[in-house]
């Protein structure tokens, strides 16, 4: 597998309708908010989790595309058995002092695990050889405009324990809470370094898989909490050289998102209320822009 030879940046737009894109554990699972602006937030790790899950589904643990950081939901029983059989505490907390061996371990992990190759992984304490810095870096996604979280009360026609049933003399109801956003359009920025890709062997095929994951990951992440989430735009900037040809912030600034005419005086409720402009003329020399979605 040859590594990619271009630097990339990307702007990724996704939206949520009547759902919670990313709950805040500090606020009773309310959608995350930026307290200063009331804009919604989705953390980088939340998006990475979805990318990992998509790759698991798409590649089904094909050689070279295993995912190291697994969620229980995609548990494969054979793996589980092997995992338990192999659960032995290594005595040495550090990578072997022998650098060649350390390199071999790192290389093997990169070759076999998509997420290690893409996002990197920490394999040890202290010695740098055991830390893989992945080429792909995602920043927090923020919503374009302030969002309004709603708290919806729901009822369940059943109770969990006998005791509750007795207390309600057979009425058997429980109340629950659900937090949703009526609508939110989120924007995330990402970076792909060709130079770090050289070290982990992140290839063009991997990059294609990453784009596919971004485009399709919400299709396989449906749940009661999420509501309707959809990837709306994926705008990729490709630099001619590995080091890049323009500052990242200049490229990101070329993507402008505005409200469509006549909708400015009401809250946005669908993607049609926004207009995305990519100023292709503002592209510096040596940078090409593509809309993959």
């Amino acid at each position, binding site marked *: 597998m040859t590594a990619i030879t271009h630097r990339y940046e990307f702007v990724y737009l996704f939206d949520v309708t009547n759902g919670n894109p990313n709950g805040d554990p500090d606020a009773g699972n309310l959608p995350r908010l930026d307290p200063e602006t009331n804009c919604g937030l989705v953390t980088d790790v939340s998006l990475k989790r979805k990318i990992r899950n998509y790759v698991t589904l798409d590649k089904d643990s094909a050689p070279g595309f*295993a995912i190291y950081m697994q969620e229980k939901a995609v548990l494969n029983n054979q793996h589980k058995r092997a995992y338990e059989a192999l659960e*032995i505490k290594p005595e040495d907390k550090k990578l072997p002092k022998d650098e060649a061996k350390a390199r071999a371990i790192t290389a093997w992990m990169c070759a076999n695990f998509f997420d290690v190759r893409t996002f990197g992984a920490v394999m040890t304490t202290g010695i740098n050889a055991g830390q893989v810095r992945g080429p792909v870096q995602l920043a927090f996604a923020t919503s374009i405009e302030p969002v309004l979280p709603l708290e919806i009360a729901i009822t369940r026609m059943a109770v969990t324990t006998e005791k509750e049933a007795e207390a309600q003399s057979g009425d058997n109801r429980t109340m629950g809470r659900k937090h949703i956003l009526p609508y939110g359009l989120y924007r995330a920025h990402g970076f792909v370094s060709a130079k770090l890709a050289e070290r982990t062997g992140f290839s063009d095929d991997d990059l294609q898989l990453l784009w596919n994951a971004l485009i399709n990951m919400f299709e396989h992440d449906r749940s009661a909490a999420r509501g309707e989430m959809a990837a709306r735009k994926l705008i990729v900037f490709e630099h001619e050289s590995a080091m890049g040809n323009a500052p990242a912030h200049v490229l990101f600034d070329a993507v402008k998102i505005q409200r469509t005419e006549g909708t400015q005086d009401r809250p946005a409720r669908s993607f049609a209320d926004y207009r995305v402009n990519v100023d292709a003329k503002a592209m510096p020399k040596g940078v090409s822009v593509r809309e993959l979605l």
Partner: protein
Amino acid sequence: MSYGIRLHVWGDRACFTRPEMKVERVSYDVITPSAARGILEAIHWKPAIRWIVDRIHVLKPIRFESIRRNEVGSKLSPGNVSKAMKAGTTAGLVAYVDNDRQQRAATILRDVAYVIEAHFEFTDAVGPDESVGKHLDIFNRRARKGQYFHAPCLGVREFPAHFSLIEDGQPLPEAHPERDADKDLGWMLHDIDFTQDMTPRFFRAQLKGGVIEVPPWQSTEVSA
């Protein structure tokens, strides 16, 4: 102060974690010399040179925000990898996130902007054909064009750093009117001494007129 560079860096969020508060991360008030060096190295570095941060200008008011995320508590174990390599299969070599879930809060900085003033010195690894001008040119050329080796970040990789070069003779960017100009920031990490088995070394950071003077690495003001 010959061969110096000045780099303007800014971003929405930053987390320069205090070493004494690493579990529930709390950021220092400002960028550490160590993190500033990391940004410079992301743009240009070779084993022949060592970046030395001289001065840090703080252009924006110091503001914090808290965020809590799910994290994984364990690291990848090389021992298990060796076993899997011998067995020739990845079966069983995965970490189940749910078994090892930790929720950690981070107190991070919001909306930061700095100017890093730095220069570089040669290390023992310098070859015969190295020249100061060469590395200086490479750095300036890359910073001017926005090129980098990997995307520089503000403390942690999820907070990318935007940067632009301040050319010789160009004035510094406007500072925010409400920025903290004078403040004793207490003891702050200077950098980590990799020659002495990763010993952190600290210095007393004083913000004076919006500028932190970073004492030289070998001076008596820097202690482990």
